[in-house]
């Protein structure tokens, strides 16, 4: 007879998915709650920097594309909150944890979107980096998370193409547009590399997540994939690569790159980037301003239920 724990590990090793009703170690559950809710919060907070340009998009087509993209991000937030709820937590509590700063969201969204080109850079680089990570997560051991990733990856690939297409229009446009594209690339390239997290040796959650197959590839391996795939994309745009130390390493079959500014990484993660406070305050403000609407819904539903009960009694 296998213990529940042995059976759990057997499934993990056999690449069987763990489903909500299956036995799982408490720390596996907690680890998943942390990771999936963080992912959900990232989608939702990510709506702010992109939403920042919806009202100023320079053409109606771009406005529609951006609106629809931000709407998709909201949809991703919803599936991911639902996936987290399968682990026995409530969305309202997850949101409260994000608002109190206890739960994190992707640090990249603490960088401001200063120009229109940033919308292209986010689609291309930020969604691009997210996809590298998410493609790997399609094979994650927890069933609901894996299925959410498969669905989300499809839409994210579409967003990345749209972002890159926006960059092409700028990079091949007027000198001012090209400068705007270069500036956005310079500002978003390094933060995009940071999205893969610290080096494997420094990563707090990596080892256990790898054993449980929540994570399938290491931070550094995923980051390398992204670095390699981005080089020809920058060349095609005719822009300068922001990493002056970048060099092809024939022996490794990969690009060697300059070191990330880890002091900046930890500074932003620890809450001191340009927009950390703004993002959370914005979320809290919208949430508080909407409280009367949610209260009204609850009151209305209660009245309706009471009416139905009354009618039933009368009948």
């Amino acid at each position, binding site marked *: 007879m296998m213990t529940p724990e042995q059976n759990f590990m057997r499934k993990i090793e056999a690449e069987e998915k763990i489903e909500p009703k299956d036995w799982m170690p408490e720390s596996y559950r907690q680890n998943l709650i942390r990771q999936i809710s963080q992912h959900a919060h990232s989608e939702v907070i990510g709506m702010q920097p992109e939403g920042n340009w919806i009202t100023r998009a320079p053409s109606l087509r771009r406005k529609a594309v951006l*609106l629809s993209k*931000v709407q998709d991000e909201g949809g991703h937030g919803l599936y991911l909150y639902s996936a987290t709820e399968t682990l026995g937590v409530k969305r309202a509590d997850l949101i409260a944890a994000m608002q109190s700063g206890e739960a994190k969201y992707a640090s990249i969204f603490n960088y401001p979107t200063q120009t*229109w080109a940033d919308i292209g850079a986010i689609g291309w680089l930020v969604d691009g980096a997210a996809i590298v990570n998410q493609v790997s997560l399609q094979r994650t051991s927890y069933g609901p998370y894996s299925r959410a990733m498969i669905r989300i990856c499809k839409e994210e690939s579409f967003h990345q193409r749209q972002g890159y297409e926006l960059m092409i229009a*700028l990079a091949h446009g007027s000198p001012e547009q090209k400068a705007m594209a270069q500036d956005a690339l310079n500002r978003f390239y390094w933060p995009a590399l940071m999205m893969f997290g610290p080096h494997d040796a420094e990563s707090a959650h990596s080892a256990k997540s790898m054993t449980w197959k929540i994570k399938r590839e290491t931070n550094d391996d995923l980051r390398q994939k992204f670095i390699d795939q981005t080089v020809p994309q920058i060349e095609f745009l005719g822009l300068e690569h922001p990493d002056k130390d970048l060099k092809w390493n024939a022996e490794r079959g990969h690009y060697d790159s300059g070191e990330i500014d880890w002091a900046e990484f930890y500074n932003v993660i620890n809450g001191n980037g340009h927009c950390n406070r703004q993002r959370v305050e914005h979320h809290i403000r919208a949430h508080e*301003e909407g409280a009367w609407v*949610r*209260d009204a819904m609850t009151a209305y539903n209660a009245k309706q239920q009471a009416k139905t009960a009354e009618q039933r009694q009368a009948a």
Partner: protein
Amino acid sequence: MSDFDLKTATQEYATRLGDDSVVLGHRLSEWTSNAPFLEEDIALSNVALDYIGRARMYYSYAAELAGNGKTEDDLAYTRDMREFRNLLIHELPRGDFAYTMVRQLFVDVFNTYYLPELAKSSDSTLAGIAQKGIKETRYHLRRSHEWALRLGDGTEESHKRMQRAIESLWGYTHELFDADPLEVQLADAGVGVHNAALRPAWLEQVSEILTEASLTVPKDDWAVRGGRIGYHTENLGHMLNDMQFLHRAYPGCQW
């Protein structure tokens, strides 16, 4: 009306309808990341997208009729406030959620009667755009109707906010049923719609919904007008500052 006049009038009419759509779509898009909860954020963006899509169709058609190489974006981004011809109700600020939903209710019920009439237009492009809008409007009205009930008959506060929004928007609804000589001529020619004829049905349905929601239908004792002659509220100028800034800052660029 000679053929040439009809074409010019149709072009002007399509521009007006494009203005209505872009301005309301823009206002709705201001809710993105600001809605009371995530599902509603997504739904409001969805409605905004429908209006932006509609604006693009009307403007593209107006540009095509003008035949001077101008595009939908020239119409949206390079005209000044006084050249915009949208009805005022569309440009008013987003306000609180009650204000937005009351405006949607008024406009959605209007479109419920207006678009099926426009879909009968002898102009097949306008008829086609209207046809697509009918389906969208069914969804929009289902939402604004449900919200009217929930908020009207929710809490004391939600009821108060709804009634206040109804009072402050009511005077802007009259303009929906106006028609200047151009619109009358277009309607007579079978291209446009006799808007005035739609008011009884509009009033009946709006009154029914408001009553069901335990809200009060205001008296018709004030009206503000001017959108179709470019006499706008102060709000539109600020909205266009935002909307047009980038396009105007780098003239002649492709985006």
